[in-house]
């Protein structure tokens, strides 16, 4: 690569190369790709001068050539958790769909009629129009597969739906799976999205659109294990009247990891819980940006994020809650607390409230601290060695958030990954 080329320009070139590869073999996804490419023309790609990308450089993506080609089709590994309702993607391509509960259906892009496709493309464009989701636009332009998951009205899903995204092989390249999840009126479901690790040089860039109709209730648990590659995931959710969404995230670090969680309160009486835990170590990176829009009155948002950041890792929390002028009687709370366990680690935290209505209850806060020496000493005077004390104290910091996750295989997996992290990092105590 020519050193004088800006990374975002190089990235655009890589995307074009990838796009031409896809266009050589037209398939059912071509109309989705085309619409995406069109949006991409007016879309600024991420660079460090954009506030939303200030702390995360896309240079490693450029350097690894991750975007110039798709990941090859590959055989699946055994699923991480066994589930009655299961969808598995491998390298961005749909590998397995097994649904046992009634009222739940999955269709691929090819199985949708023109009208449905047009509606979904429109919905995506609306969500991406702000210009703040460049990698979601890239996902659309290069989509590896797109599926529509539907929960019929009044369906109460008996078992969680587990969506697993695997990356196989060690060749560099990128995968861009896209999911639309629509929950009908009064539907109830627990959904878990589990990501796998990526090999160095691999990019997994996924997007999940969530649409909750009136009175629907959905929990959505995200699990991202440690990775040597790049992972980007965007959630774009819209909540109709009196619906409730819980998005619970368990995240670790990757060579580059970026989560964009966007929720729009579009109907009165909506409730949102947007909690997360992140644990980063070594030289890994984690960046989460949450944007919640209150556009109507009488909605609630609760957001708690706890992070433990150690070694030479870096974590970024940027949370924004935007209360629009008509959103009276909004209640919104956002907190971000960090344990910084190494002098070489870095946390950047920026909770933001933007309020344009006058009758609202809102609060936000952020802390960055270390493990309390007095607490460690207290444990020791009771015969508990320093390593165990360190492990118990760091676990205590995040476990109460994980304990609030809905009871799905996601919570068990998060607990297991967190325990391993605490055990490994306490070795340095």
């Amino acid at each position: 690569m020519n050193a004088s080329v800006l990374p975002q320009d190089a990235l655009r070139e890589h995307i074009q190369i990838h796009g031409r590869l896809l266009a050589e073999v037209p398939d059912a996804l071509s109309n989705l790709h085309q619409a995406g490419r069109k949006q991409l023309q007016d879309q600024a790609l991420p660079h460090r001068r954009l506030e939303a990308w200030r702390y995360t450089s896309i240079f490693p993506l450029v350097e690894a050539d991750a975007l110039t080609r798709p990941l090859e089709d590959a055989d699946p590994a055994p699923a991480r958790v066994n589930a009655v309702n299961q969808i598995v993607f491998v390298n961005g391509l749909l590998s397995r769909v097994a649904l046992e509960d009634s009222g739940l259906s999955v269709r691929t892009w090819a199985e949708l009629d023109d009208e449905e496709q047009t509606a979904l493309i429109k919905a995506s464009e609306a969500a991406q129009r702000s210009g703040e989701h460049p990698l979601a636009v890239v996902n659309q332009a290069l989509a590896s597969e797109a599926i529509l998951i539907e929960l019929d009205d009044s369906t109460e899903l008996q078992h969680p739906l587990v969506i697993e995204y695997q990356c196989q092989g060690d060749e560099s390249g990128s995968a861009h799976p896209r999911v639309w999840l629509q929950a009908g009126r009064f539907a109830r479901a627990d959904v878990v999205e589990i990501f796998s690790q990526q090999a160095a040089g691999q990019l997994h860039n996924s997007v999940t659109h969530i649409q909750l109709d009136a009175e629907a209730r959905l929990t959505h648990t995200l699990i991202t294990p440690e990775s040597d590659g790049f992972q980007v995931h965007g959630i774009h959710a819209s909540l109709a009247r009196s619906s409730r969404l819980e998005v619970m995230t368990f995240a670790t670090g990757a060579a580059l990891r970026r989560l964009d969680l966007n929720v729009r309160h579009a109907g009165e009486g909506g409730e949102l819980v947007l909690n997360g835990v992140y644990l980063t170590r070594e030289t890994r990176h984690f960046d989460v940006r949450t944007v919640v829009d209150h556009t109507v009155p009488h909605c609630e948002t609760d957001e708690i994020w706890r992070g433990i950041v150690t070694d030479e890792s870096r974590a970024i929390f940027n949370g924004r809650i935007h209360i629009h002028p008509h959103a009276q009687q909004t209640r919104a709370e956002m907190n971000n607390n960090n344990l910084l366990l190494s002098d070489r680690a870095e946390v950047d935290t920026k909770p933001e409230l933007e309020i344009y209505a006058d009758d609202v209850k809102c609060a936000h806060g952020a802390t960055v601290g270390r493990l309390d020496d007095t607490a460690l000493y207290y444990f020791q005077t009771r015969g508990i060695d320093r390593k165990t004390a360190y492990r118990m104290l760091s676990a205590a910091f995040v476990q109460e958030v994980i304990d609030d996750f809905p009871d799905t295989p996601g919570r068990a997996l998060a607990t297991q990954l967190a325990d391993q992290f605490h055990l490994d990092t306490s070795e340095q105590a």
Partner: protein
Amino acid sequence: MLNIDNLKARVEDKEILRGLTLHVRPGEVHAIMGPNGSGKSTLTHVLTGKEGYEVTGGKVTFKGKDLLDMSPEDRAREGLFLAFQYPVEIPGVSNLQFLRTAVNSIRKYRGEEELDAAAFMRLAREKAKQVNLPADFLKRGVNEGFSGGEKKRNEILQMLLLEPSLMLLDETDSGLDIDALQTVAEGVNAMRSPDRGIVVVTHYQRLLDYIVPDYVHVLAKGQIIKSGGRELALELEEKGYGWLGINDETTEAQG
């Protein structure tokens, strides 16, 4: 069992202990009294191994072993227990989990079998009753939101569970009303036995009405300047520290 000989220690550049000697034999109760800044808290923290205290002279043996050479956790496992003046709040770690980890660390060190959750729960409930702590305190975070008296009773609960051979009580009476003081004292007295030693560190003699000492020592400027029987505490109560030529309240450093 505890032999402190000519102990000298400093915090940063400030010399706090200046040659302190104290011998505690099994079964004895010693009270160390002294004004603020005399070195009382420094003594307890040097004995338990808190960071930030530098020992510059003297030696301490506990059951014949060099105490100052041990990690804080090994001192506890050998049977040393400090009841804190200000017990630490630890949200997120349940009292039960904390206590069980502590008890099992010590049992393991002694080569005893670790207690399972059910067996420990029974034991903890029984001991909690003894110090008038309702059982739901076991489920709460360690000292989280406890009142001053509840924290001190929780310290005594830990002491009852860990069954130390030497107990150091650091200003255990501070912040306690009479009822709480009595409960705490009963807990301590229940532990009195011919093979245990107790060192009560206190500014006032009030606690000594309930935990009656065999010996009373007056600590001033990092040394024990006078020792006697119980009557010495009463004399101090009546006459104040000025009687011994010690300037109370004016000393700037908190021991």
